[in-house]
């Protein structure tokens, strides 16, 4: 990799981000121009725009593996895959918001989602700690606003405040870690930092201290133990589409930063690796055990998402091409699957059945197709073949085994069994429990059925035809080692 001078193609490389910013402007303008009864178009435009941007990115913005924009951005395949995932998640979130009370007809809501997506894209692209910090904060601040968006609801405001206080504090700790990295290497570029570290001039204690401080910030983003306390509260209180967005895209963006900082930058892995291995095991176990006791579906999915961050971390700590590829593939699967799960949750709570798991009783008889979507999503989360979740876990554990972390893979498999239990308990309520008296079919607007069909097909496709997707992730991983 070399730092190239400015080239017109550099603009094409960040075309998706530029287009997202333009789209946000368009949405804000439409918000002023449109009549109140046509505001539903805002969400639909955001979604369609996002999918057009994905297509444009695939055509025009193929990565070349270079450092561009003065070394600020690494235009490689890992970033490219992550960006497509973020834009997809943003589009689906917009689609899942179009009929949700409190957020649906607000132009700024969609614009903030797009802003968050831009931040996430730059988190994946960042090759310099300045860019990295700015991108993390762009995503973070947009996330705080989104979580507290329905500020008249005290639950949403509370979620926003908690997210904000945790997020701001942890990112300040991360910034201090970054200042130490800069101070002891004299560089801000991650590749340059790696080469200074390789020369062995920097002491162990400094590397370890800055790694731990940075891990606090990243750990918050991906909600791993012991930085997970905010997750259940924020997930429960935030508007449900936002919960889906934060738990999928924001978490994935955190992993993108983890890959950038710890694989490209702080290459002296022998110091921080044991910490991450221990955290991976703890995160899976604590997430799954706490999920067992949950009665609220959003809290259950919150703890399950903590456990899923643990699985993705298992692949990451293998620190190999296979490991990074497995992390990337696992996250692709996780984003699609969890968005589908939240899509169902949104529809059920819209119908007035609430967010308690008991409210899902007999859903298979009231709305068989919706129950089917839930079945696909939850079985994929549980890791049942032939759905995508199974192959995600398969590659994760394979990567851990190959790196000699057999015990960690075993802990993972045991955790997958615990996970299977609580996902099946929910499905039992959906399929076996009798419906409550007078419960009607759940209304599914067309935008939602479209989103759920895309997501369900995606889950099946990433499962039954997993290998081309995994090859893609593997080619990306080869680019960063």
């Amino acid at each position: 990799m070399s730092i190239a001078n400015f080239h017109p193609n550099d603009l094409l490389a960040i075309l998706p981000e530029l287009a997202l910013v333009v789209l946000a402007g368009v949405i804000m303008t439409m918000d002023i121009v449109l009549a109140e009864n046509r505001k539903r178009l805002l969400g639909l435009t955001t979604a369609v725009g996002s999918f057009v941007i994905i297509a444009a990115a695939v055509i025009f913005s193929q990565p070349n593996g270079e450092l561009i924009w003065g070394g600020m951005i690494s235009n490689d395949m890992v970033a490219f895959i992550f960006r497509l995932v973020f834009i997809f998640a943003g589009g689906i979130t917009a689609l899942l918001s179009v009929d949700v009370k409190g957020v649906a007809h607000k132009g700024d809501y969609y614009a903030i989602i797009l802003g968050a997506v831009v931040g996430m894209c730059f988190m994946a692209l960042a090759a310099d700690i300045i860019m990295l910090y700015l991108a993390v904060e762009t995503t973070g601040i947009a996330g705080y606003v989104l979580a507290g968006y329905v500020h008249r609801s005290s639950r949403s405001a509370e979620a926003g405040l908690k997210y904000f206080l945790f997020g701001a504090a942890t990112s300040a700790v991360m910034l201090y870690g970054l200042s130490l990295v800069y101070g002891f290497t004299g560089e801000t570029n991650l590749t340059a930092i790696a080469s200074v570290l390789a020369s062995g001039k920097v002491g162990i204690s400094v590397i370890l201290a800055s790694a731990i401080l940075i891990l606090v910030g990243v750990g918050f983003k991906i909600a791993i133990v012991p930085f997970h306390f905010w997750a259940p509260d924020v997930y429960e209180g935030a508007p449900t589409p936002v919960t889906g967005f934060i738990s999928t895209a924001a978490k994935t963006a955190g992993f993108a930063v983890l890959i950038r900082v710890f694989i490209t930058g702080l290459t002296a892995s022998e110091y921080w690796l044991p910490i991450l291995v221990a955290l991976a095991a703890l995160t899976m176990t604590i997430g799954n055990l706490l999920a067992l006791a949950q009665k609220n579906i959003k809290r259950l999915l919150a703890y399950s998402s903590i456990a899923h961050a643990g699985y993705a971390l298992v692949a990451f700590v293998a620190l190999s091409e296979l490991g990074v590829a497995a992390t990337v593939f696992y996250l692709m699967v996780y984003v699609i699957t969890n968005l589908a799960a939240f899509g169902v949750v949104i529809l059920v709570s819209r119908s007035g059945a609430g967010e308690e798991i008991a409210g899902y009783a007999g859903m298979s008889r009231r709305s068989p197709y919706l129950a089917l979507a839930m079945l696909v999503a939850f079985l994929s989360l549980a890791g049942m073949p032939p759905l995508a979740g199974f192959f995600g876990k398969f590659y994760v554990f394979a990567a851990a085994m190959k790196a000699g972390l057999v015990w960690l893979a075993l802990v993972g498999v045991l955790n997958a069994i615990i996970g299977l239990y609580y996902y099946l308990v929910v499905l039992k309520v959906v399929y076996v429990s009798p419906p409550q008296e007078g419960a009607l079919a759940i209304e599914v607007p067309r935008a939602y059925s479209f989103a759920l069909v895309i997501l369900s097909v995606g889950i099946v496709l990433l499962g039954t035809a997993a290998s081309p997707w995994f090859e893609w992730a593997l080619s990306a991983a080869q680019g960063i080692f």
Partner: protein
Amino acid sequence: MIPTTYYLALSAILFSIGVIGVLVRRNAIVIFMSIELMLNSANLAFVAFAREFGTLDGQLMVFFVMTVAAAEVAVGLALIVAIFRSKASIDVDAVNLLKG
């Protein structure tokens, strides 16, 4: 000229005060001020290192951090006001609807 280590020691002290403030205080505004203290301690470290190396990267970073901090103030205070409206309190222990 004051040695760089002095600045770094001050920065570490400020950072520690900030962390303790975040962990110990219960008033949302005071927690928020402690977070600002942490950000500024990192700024001080960046500037001190930039002076040591004679490069501008660290100074540049500080400008961005200040901008980010300003954006955080806007969002954070708005959320604190929203909480105050519903609870007439900004004690974080009173913010307890979501538990389980």
